[in-house]
């Protein structure tokens, strides 16, 4: 059984409590959502193997934070594994199930974007097909208890972690390579291992530098680490995001310092600033170059991957020739129409209304592709959540219309309690739900409104409008591609008191175009197009910003990029000169 983020993160532990094996996977922010439960299920334990997989995002490629979830393993005091390769991701997950079952304790596997979005060869072992029966009888008790019971469970947790530590000291996921008596060692985990190996090789330091690769990072395999600290004088830590290993090893070294067989040691890593991203230590993802630079700085080496002249020439070419490529909505995306309508209606309204954003494709509402309409962005549910607050600030002088935005999937997963709260306290909000009938941003997963369950089985839809109306909120449904209607409805609803919901409903073109046959042909009648004269120059291109609308410099007119256009025809509605023609295929 697999759970994803907060669409039922508590289903897998229940399965595990009933004796099945269960895995729940989420990214960094999802771990926050589940942390409440994590901080108690560590005490109540599990019967079947239960594995939590978290995906961190150094450099925040597609997240709003660089949170390091390894801290949760230390916080909840549960065993933590960090794979370096696709093979290890598989092997460690299997091991984590076995360990979890043996200890009766949830185990965590932490990956990062660079591993999660990598492909590599994985060799499978024997696959055991075991069918278990879920059992939970009136004799079972599953709780972290209270008062002295909780303290007893807490002490049992510490005992379990001691057993985990003994196993980790022997684990094959930890390995040391290089000179057995190296005075300079790298301690690394996860992606840092392959980067370290490559950096050491490129610098020709293989004879001098030992690499201790840890796959089991909490509890720290102290005996193994001690063995290698004994021969070291200098230690470099190579790891993603926080100085997690660095802190834990330093603490161990401090404990051992009085015994005289360790140290004095010089440490390098995040604290010393040797391992640093573009924005400083502890920010951005690491790579081979960052490890090379750290080693070169420490050892006083001069490493130039290229001749300086070549690098300068390359940088100059990129600087002068490569235009920015800001993220944008896909061609035909209904969100572009929705934000257009919101922006227009706010202009008509004239009270400088505030739009609070949320997590999904429509997060891009903060950017030019969404006409920079949205002004806030944090985590799932924060749009309607913070709108609740903004909508109650009139007595303190902030008397403006407030629009909260979320998508359909985010509505189901993270917004309903905040909507109830808004109704309960009569916050003055217009909540616009951008319903594209899918969870587009994460790969088109179904949600409760799509008519299929998480495994794709047909189920009854739970319509958004039924929920909103059930709460007693006035709810309207408009297709944002009917632009006039869309703008009019936003404008009208902004004038109403209390909380209202407007559902902008139009299917995501990525799923829609898969269902239909040939796309309609869209083209520009260049005799009608008024080009530079239009809407303060090239209206469709400059203002509407759909990547399907491009410029024909030879003619000085607009044209359609048929490799990009999906045939939605929205630009045809917007074109002031009515020069864009949509031809439906017969």
């Amino acid at each position, binding site marked *: 059984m697999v759970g994803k983020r907060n669409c039922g993160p508590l289903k897998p532990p229940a399965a595990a409590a009933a004796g099945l094996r269960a895995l729940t996977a989420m990214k960094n922010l999802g771990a926050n959502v589940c942390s409440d439960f994590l901080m108690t299920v560590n005490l109540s334990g599990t019967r079947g193997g239960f594995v939590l997989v978290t995906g961190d995002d150094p450099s925040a490629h597609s997240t709003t934070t660089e949170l390091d979830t390894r801290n949760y393993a230390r916080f909840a005091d549960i065993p933590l594994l960090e794979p370096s390769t696709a093979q290890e991701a598989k092997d460690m997950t299997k091991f984590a199930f076995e360990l979890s079952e043996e200890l009766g304790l949830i185990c965590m596997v932490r990956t990062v974007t660079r591993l999660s979005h990598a492909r590599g060869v994985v060799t499978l072992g024997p696959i055991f097909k075991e069918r278990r029966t879920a059992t939970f009888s009136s004799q079972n008790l599953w709780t972290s208890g209270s008062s002295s019971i909780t303290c007893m469970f807490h002490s049992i947790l510490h005992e379990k972690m001691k057993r985990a530590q003994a196993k980790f000291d022997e684990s094959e996921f930890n390995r040391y390579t290089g000179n057995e008596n190296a005075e300079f060692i790298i301690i690394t985990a996860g992606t840092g291992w392959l980067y370290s190996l490559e950096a050491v090789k490129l610098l020709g330091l293989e004879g001098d530098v030992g690499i201790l690769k840890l796959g089991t990072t909490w509890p720290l395999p102290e005996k193994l680490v001690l063995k290698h600290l004994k021969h070291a004088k200098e230690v470099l830590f190579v790891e993603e995001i926080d100085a997690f290993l660095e802190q834990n090893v330093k603490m161990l070294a401090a404990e051992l310092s009085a015994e005289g067989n360790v140290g004095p040691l010089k440490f390098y890593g995040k604290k010393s600033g040797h391992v640093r991203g573009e924005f400083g230590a502890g920010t951005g993802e690491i790579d081979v170059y960052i490890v090379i630079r750290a080693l070169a700085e420490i050892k006083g080496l001069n490493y130039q991957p290229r001749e300086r002249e070549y690098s300068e020439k390359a940088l100059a070419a990129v600087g002068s020739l490569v235009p920015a490529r800001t993220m944008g909505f896909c*061609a035909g995306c209904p969100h572009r129409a929705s934000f257009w309508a919101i922006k227009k209606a706010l202009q008509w309204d004239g009270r400088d209304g505030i739009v609070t954003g949320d997590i999904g494709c429509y997060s891009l509402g903060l950017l*030019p592709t969404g006409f920079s309409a949205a002004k806030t962005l944090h985590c799932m549910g924060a749009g309607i959540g913070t709108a609740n607050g903004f909508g109650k600030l009139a007595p303190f002088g902030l008397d403006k219309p407030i629009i909260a935005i979320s998508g359909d999937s985010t509505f189901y997963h993270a917004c309903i309690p905040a909507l109830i709260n808004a109704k309960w306290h009569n916050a003055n909000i217009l909540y616009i739900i951008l319903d594209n009938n899918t969870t587009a941003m994460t790969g088109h997963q179904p949600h409760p409104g799509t008519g299929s369950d998480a495994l794709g089985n047909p189920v009854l839809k739970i319509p958004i409008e039924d929920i909103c109306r059930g709460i007693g909120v006035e709810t309207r449904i408009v297709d944002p591609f009917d632009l006039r209607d869309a703008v009019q409805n936003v404008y009208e609803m902004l004038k109403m008191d209390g909380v209202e919901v407007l559902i902008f409903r139009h299917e995501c073109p990525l799923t829609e175009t898969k269902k239909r046959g040939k796309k309609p042909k869209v083209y520009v009648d260049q005799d009608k197009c008024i080009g530079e004269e239009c809407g303060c120059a090239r209206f469709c291109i400059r203002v509407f910003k759909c990547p399907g609308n491009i410029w024909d410099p030879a003619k000085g007119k607009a044209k359609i990029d048929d490799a990009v256009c999906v045939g939605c025809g929205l630009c045809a509605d917007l074109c002031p000169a009515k020069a864009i023609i949509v031809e439906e295929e017969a």
Partner: protein
Amino acid sequence: MEDPLNIIVTGVGGQGNIQASYIIASAALIEGFHVSVGETYGAAQRGGSVTSHIRLSRERQYGPLTQEGKVHVIVNPRPVYPIDVLAGEAIYPPINKVLSAIKELVFSVHVVEATELAKKVGDVIFQNVVMVGCLAASEFTPIKTEAFRTAITELFADKGLDINLKAFEIGVEEFKRTKPL
């Protein structure tokens, strides 16, 4: 061969970049290499810049990120304009200027009108497989053309095999005709 041999596939979202890197990696695997593929991309599903790194080695597995190095380039000169350019906030450089700047920095540049060739196959979406055909014919990698064919045959066994193979062969033929800039 340089070990590791690094191949970078770069473009914008929606061009089939990740699929192309998957074909190349699968072909390399057929030839018995250790293969790592790293994908980088913007959060946008369409229109953001996307780069895949493919790393082959006879010795061992490498990390999924390639270091700086001097390369051969096969380029489809068909631009996909960023909205920054469309909005008038950035200027898209003339293609010949881009090509000559690349030429200054690399071993060789081969220009292939992959989008136009893909249209002949039936849809612009096949330009990625046309480009893979060019890579196979280029012999810049030690992967044999036959291994690419096997990889494509395995990957598209269920759907679109003929048309993908056709796009691949068009790429192979086209590359043989091209001369480096």
